[in-house]
């Protein structure tokens, strides 16, 4: 016992200070693909390069759905002259599904011009912010994930991320929860369990969709065994893209869902800082 305590003291604090300190993804981290403004639209990779169908291409218009993206990086590898670049941003969560689609149009020379992003969605309801903004109990709901997102939720409880320091915890019963955090595309065999778990959560309640499958169906899509995303079954408050999203990205999404951070150019504000 004594040696265990001594060992712990020697180790010191291993917990990171996110979101006060920014996330530091390593050099090889693959973030969201983005079209470099001014690139020739004709030179952008075709739809078929994307294994999860995140790219749409019409004459004069090009779109990348970050909510479908599996972050494999193939489009960036295949684009000429770096017309598609992978971002370094970890905080990609959005309260609006549409907010995850990056769209460009061509100008008269056929070069990409970014379309204005959709107007920011309504603020988090005051009631949610007031009642859940300080202490939040979530029930994890696996709706058919590959388990990568699940293991990242588990990682949030490890000493490095220790999400409990932010007043957020995962609880055993939906009856004790303020919302559900869902991983997976909602398989046919889980659809009933997903609905019933949500219904067991007392109101006000929130739904957070974690990862590409939960956000859009991801690489699984909408097929005989999959509904193609949580929003097909439940009202989703926040979508967190990624395959899987890194732990900091999930923390950001959770705090976004209760209005503790806000998106201004995807930059998180610190806890307690007021929105300007």
């Amino acid at each position, binding site marked *: 016992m004594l040696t*265990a305590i001594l*060992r712990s003291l020697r180790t010191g604090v*291993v917990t990171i200070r996110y979101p006060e300190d920014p996330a530091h993804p*390593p*050099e*090889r*981290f*693959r973030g969201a693909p983005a079209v470099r403004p001014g690139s020739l639209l004709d030179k952008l990779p075709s739809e078929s390069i994307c*294994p*999860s169908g995140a790219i749409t291409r019409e004459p004069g218009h090009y779109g990348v759905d970050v909510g479908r993206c*599996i*972050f*494999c*990086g193939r489009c960036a590898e295949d684009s000429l002259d770096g017309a598609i670049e992978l971002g370094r941003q970890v905080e990609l969560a959005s309260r609006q599904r549409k907010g995850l689609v990056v769209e460009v149009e061509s100008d008269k020379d056929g070069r990409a011009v970014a379309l204005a992003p959709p107007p920011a969605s309504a603020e988090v309801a005051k009631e949610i912010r007031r009642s859940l903004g300080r202490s939040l109990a979530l*029930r*994890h*709901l*696996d709706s*058919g*994930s*590959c*388990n*990568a*997102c*699940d*293991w*990242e*939720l*588990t*990682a949030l*409880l*490890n*000493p*490095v991320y220790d999400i409990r320091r932010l007043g957020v915890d*995962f609880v*055993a*019963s*939906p009856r004790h929860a303020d919302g559900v955090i869902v991983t*997976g*595309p909602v*398989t*046919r*065999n*889980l*659809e*009933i*369990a997903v609905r019933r*778990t949500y219904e067991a959560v007392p109101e006000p309640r929130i739904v957070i969709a974690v990862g590409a499958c939960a956000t859009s169906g*991801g*690489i*699984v*899509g*909408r*097929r*005989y*065994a*999959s509904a193609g995303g949580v929003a097909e079954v439940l009202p989703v408050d926040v979508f967190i893209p990624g*395959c*899987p999203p*890194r732990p900091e990205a999930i923390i950001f999404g959770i705090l976004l869902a209760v209005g503790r951070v806000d998106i201004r150019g995807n930059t998180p504000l610190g806890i307690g800082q007021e929105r300007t």
Partner: protein
Amino acid sequence: MGTLEQALSARLAGQGGFVPGPRPQDLTLRLQRAEDVPAVVAELCAAGLGLATLVATDERATTERDLKVRYLFEPIVGNTRPLPDTFVTLVASLDPDRPELPSISAQVPAANWHEREARDLFGIAFFGHPDPRPLVVHDGWPKGLFPLRKAFDAQTRPAVDSAEEFPHLLVEGEGVLEVPVGPIHAGIIEPGHFRFSTVGESILNLEARLFYTHRGLEKRIEALPIADAFYVAERICGVCSVSHGLGFCEAAEQIAGIAVPERARALRTLALELERLYNHVGDIGNIAAGASYHYGTSAGARMKEALQQVGEQLTGSRFLRGLIVPGGVRLDLTVELEKSLSAVVLATAEALASLIERIENNPSVTDRLDTTGVLQAQDAIALGVTGVGARASGIDRDARRDHPHAGYTNDLNLAVATESDGDVHARLNVRAAEARESMRLIRALLEGVPPGPIGTAMPEPLPAWGIGLAAIESPRGAAIHWLRVDGAGRVDRYHLRSASYANWPAVALAAQTSIIPDFPLVNKSFELCYSCTDR
């Protein structure tokens, strides 16, 4: 191999004869009559072979105009190690209008789920099956609709029926209590339903209902070019991403007939060992959690986190996705990465030694581990159990040695750890020994990564109707990948028998030797994935 072929040919004199394939060292026998299956299987089992996997295919659109069932066997009994690296395939051709076969589940328990799955997804009747309940499809899936038949439109979405109950064995008697658990569990775990029948704390019967995470991935992957299909295979399971991605690649590379450069093979081996190591140390922590030893849980989680972080430095993904591609790997080692990897492995070795010492010197923990959840060796063999679960029951099998893949050559001198008790403690010991061996292998690999290119081009398209087969030792045991491409070189059929698929029935069996509060501990000691099983 010659001797195995001779021995089998002598036993099966009445059947045509073996031809090589899918791999050059493998044997394939086309059965003249489907009703011969049980007799031929009995001869294979008597020759020391066990069922590795069963693959059904819908070949009505080809010149064969049939449904087929392929039974893949491998040598599992014998006094020498390694046993021959030979898969023996029995091919049974079925009448497409009335596809049926005699069940072999009573003589080969490992076939039980395979036959039920082929019935659910292909509509093949296995008459005489001891357990005819649906396996893969739940909640009022329409009768007569078989999703892996080629004629089935994957976009069809039959309505769910919430009224359907899980049919299970009812245990009756004074004091018998039924405890339903799941599919949504109390912790952050994957979904499965467990129905315990108990008296007091003792488990009389446990029935598991799985396949909640069945996403239809084997349908999803059909008709995709190899380069796209790879990303589906890599995402069948999070914590087996490297293993499954690699298995798919090796099967495709075999069809292509290409040799992957030595450096790429070494880097693939490195990734496999890194995956095994982060899983094993995390799982040791989770076994501690099952025994309510929370210091151990945190210690395991920290080791796993450090390994996933260095994995992200290497591959750009904390689950090591994006390193392996068909033909090789797409990211190379750098001097800095070698240094980071060495440092993390060194720290992990020290932390693991300290944690194991702490567990072993803590009687309140070891008391929970000893004699809990025992799996007998003969049950492990009958069910075709693989990986840690098998080795902890004395079964000396490891695909890294028995079916060499990636860069596992004799030069690495792989040591296969086994234990004999078959309880939770034995599985913990095997995991710890394997984690140490993984660290030794990583150090050895880092010392001498051969120079040269890290990939080679895949031919486009792949040779028509080629079949590839790969056995990969994933963190949970051997995973068998079977791939066939169509006339255009795209995926015609891909089947994964994951280690978890083979091992799940053993969990239910081992749990019945223990009390209900120990179930999470028994479950964690096998540490099986649901997503790899359900696909």
